[in-house]
C-alpha cells in the first residue's frame, strides 16, 4: 500500500459568490507525480495557494504526512518540506542565479540571525546551490543576475530554488506557462529526472507534458473534482472529454 503524503479533506474557498474550491478531496501518494488539470478558472492556482498557505481556506483540512497543517503559516509549511513555484515566475530579480538558490538553501539551514560572515562565500550554502542549478541545467548561468535570464531559464531557476529547500513535496504551478516548444521539452526532461524520487503536485495546461509526466491526474472544473485516475483512465473518461479535453480529444 502506498502511503499518501498529502491529504486534502473537504477543502473550500469562496471569493464573494464564486466558489474557487468546492469541497475538494485529494490524496497525493508518496513518490508520485499527481497532475491537476482543468479549464481556466477551475481553481487550480487557488488550490496551490491554499496548500502553501498563501490563502486561508474557508473550511476543510490539509494533512501533510499525517499532520494537520491547515493553520500553519507559509514559512512553517515550507520548513516542513512543502515547496512551491508560482505561475508568474517569482524569483529575486537583482540576485544572481546562484544567490537565488543559495538563499533557498539558507532558508533550511537553521535560523539566519547571523550577522557577520559573508554569506556569499559560505561553501555550506553555495555548494548545494550549485548542485541543484546543475540538476535543472543552469550550471553555465550561475553568476547571471536573474533579471537577465530568459523566461524559460527563470522558470528553471524557480524549480531549482524549490529543490534547494530539499522539499518532501513540490507544488508546481504551471511550470511550462509561456514557454516555447523547445523550452517546454527541456522542462519536461528536468521533471522526468525527478519522477519516482520526488513527490510532485503539478498544475499544467500543456496536455502533452501532463500525460508524459503524471502518474495520476485529477480533473477540476469550477473548483470541483470531476474525475481522478491514471492518464489512461482520464483519456477514456466521457465526462472529462466533454468538460475539458473536448474537441481536441474527439479528433484523435
Amino acid at each position, binding site marked *: 500500500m502506498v502511503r499518501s503524503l498529502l491529504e486534502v479533506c473537504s477543502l473550500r474557498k469562496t471569493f464573494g459568490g464564486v466558489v474557487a474550491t468546492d469541497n475538494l478531496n485529494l490524496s497525493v501518494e508518496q513518490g508520485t507525480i499527481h497532475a491537476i488539470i482543468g479549464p481556466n478558472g477551475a481553481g487550480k492556482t487557488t488550490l496551490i495557494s491554499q496548500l502553501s498557505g*498563501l490563502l486561508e481556506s474557508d473550511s476543510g483540512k490539509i494533512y501533510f504526512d499525517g499532520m494537520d497543517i491547515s493553520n500553519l503559516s507559509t514559512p512553517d509549511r515550507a520548513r516542513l518540506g512543502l515547496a512551491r513555484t508560482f505561475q508568474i515566475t517569482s524569483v529575486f530579480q537583482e*540576485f544572481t542565479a546562484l544567490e537565488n538558490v543559495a538563499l533557498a538553501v539558507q532558508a533550511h539551514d537553521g535560523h*539566519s540571525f547571523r550577522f557577520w*560572515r559573508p*554569506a556569499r562565500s559560505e561553501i555550506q550554502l553555495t555548494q548545494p546551490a550549485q548542485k541543484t542549478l546543475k540538476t535543472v541545467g543552469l550550471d553555465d548561468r550561475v553568476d547571471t543576475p536573474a533579471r537577465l535570464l530568459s523566461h524559460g531559464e527563470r522558470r528553471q531557476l524557480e524549480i531549482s530554488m524549490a529543490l534547494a529547500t530539499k522539499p518532501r513535496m513540490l507544488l508546481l504551478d504551471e511550470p511550462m506557462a509561456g514557454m516555447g516548444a523547445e523550452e517546454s521539452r527541456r522542462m519536461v526532461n528536468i521533471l522526468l529526472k525527478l519522477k519516482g524520487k520526488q513527490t510532485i503536485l503539478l498544475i499544467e495546461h500543456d496536455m502533452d507534458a501532463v500525460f508524459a509526466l503524471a502518474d495520476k491526474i485529477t480533473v477540476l472544473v469550477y473548483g470541483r473534482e470531476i474525475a481522478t485516475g491514471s492518464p489512461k483512465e482520464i483519456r477514456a473518461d466521457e465526462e472529462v472529454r466533454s468538460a475539458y479535453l473536448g474537441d481536441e480529444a474527439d479528433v484523435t
Partner: protein
Amino acid sequence: MGNKTQISIVVFVFLGLAIIPLVAQMTDTPFYLDLARRMMILSIGALSLNLIMGYGGLISFGHAAYIGVGAYTVGICAEHDLVSGFIQWPLAIILSGLFAVVFGAISLRTRGVYFIMITLALAQMMYFLGVSLDRYGGDDGLPLIERSSFEPLIDITNNIVLYYLIFFALLFSLFLSKRLVNSRFGMVLQGARSNETRMKAIGFPTFGYQLTAFVIAGMMAGFAGALLANHTDFINPDMMHWTRSGDLIIMVLLGGMGSLAGPVVGALAFLLLEELLSGVTEYWQLIFGPFLILAVLFARGGLLGFFSAKERENG
C-alpha cells in the same frame, strides 16, 4: 560588492575627511571642522536608514526620531549630572533600540505608503513629546551643560578629539554595515525587499528579520544622536521633526540607495550643497529642489552609482 570607481571615491572621501582638521587649523577656518563633523554624524544617520530603506525596502519616514532619542538621552543625563559617556552612550543606543522595537512592531504590520505614514506619525509623536518636555527646555531645547566624559581615556571637549572620534565612529559604522548586508541576515533582508512572497514560500518568516533590521538601524541612529548632542552642545525637538527624517531620506537617495557608502556621499553632498547655496541666496532651496529632481531622474543609483554606472554594466 562595490567596484573600483566606487571604492576609490570612498577612499578619497575618507582621506579628505581625515585631513580636514589640519586644513582648518592651517587656514584658521574652524567653521569647516564644524561642518565636516556634522556631515559625518548625519552620514551615520543616513547609513543606518539605508540598512532598512536601501537594503530592506522599508521606507521609514521617521528615522530622525531615533537620532532624537539618542540626543535627548545624552542631554537629559547631563542635566542630572550623569556625564560619563560610558553610561550615556550605551544608554542612548539601548533606549533608541527599545523605541525601535515598539515602533517597528507597529509599523512593520503595514507596507508601502501605510508604512511611510505610520513611521512618520510615530516620529511626530516623539517630536511633540520633546516639545512638551518643559523640564528639558520644551520648544526651545536644552543646552548641553557638559559634553560626555570619557575620562581618563579621551577628552572630547577638545574639538579635534571629538572630530576624530566621530571620524572613526563613521568608519566603524560603514564597516558594520558592510558585514551586516553581506551576512546571511543581510541576504534575508535583501531577499525580502526583492520579493517578500517568495521569501515566505521558501520558508523565511520575514517579520522577525525585518524587525531586527529596524532595531539595528534605530540603535545606530541613536548613536548618531548621542554624537550630535555633543557636536551641537545642544538638544531640541527640531532634531526629531519630520523634515529631518525627510533630509535623511534625501541623503540616502542622493548618494545611492542600497549601495554601501552611498549614504555617506549623499550626506556630504547634501550638507555641502546646503552650505554653498545658502551662501549664495536665502532661497537656496529653490535651486536645491530642482537639483534633487535631476539627481533622482538621471542618477538612479545616486551620485555614487552615477560615477560608476558604466563599470557596473560591464561586470
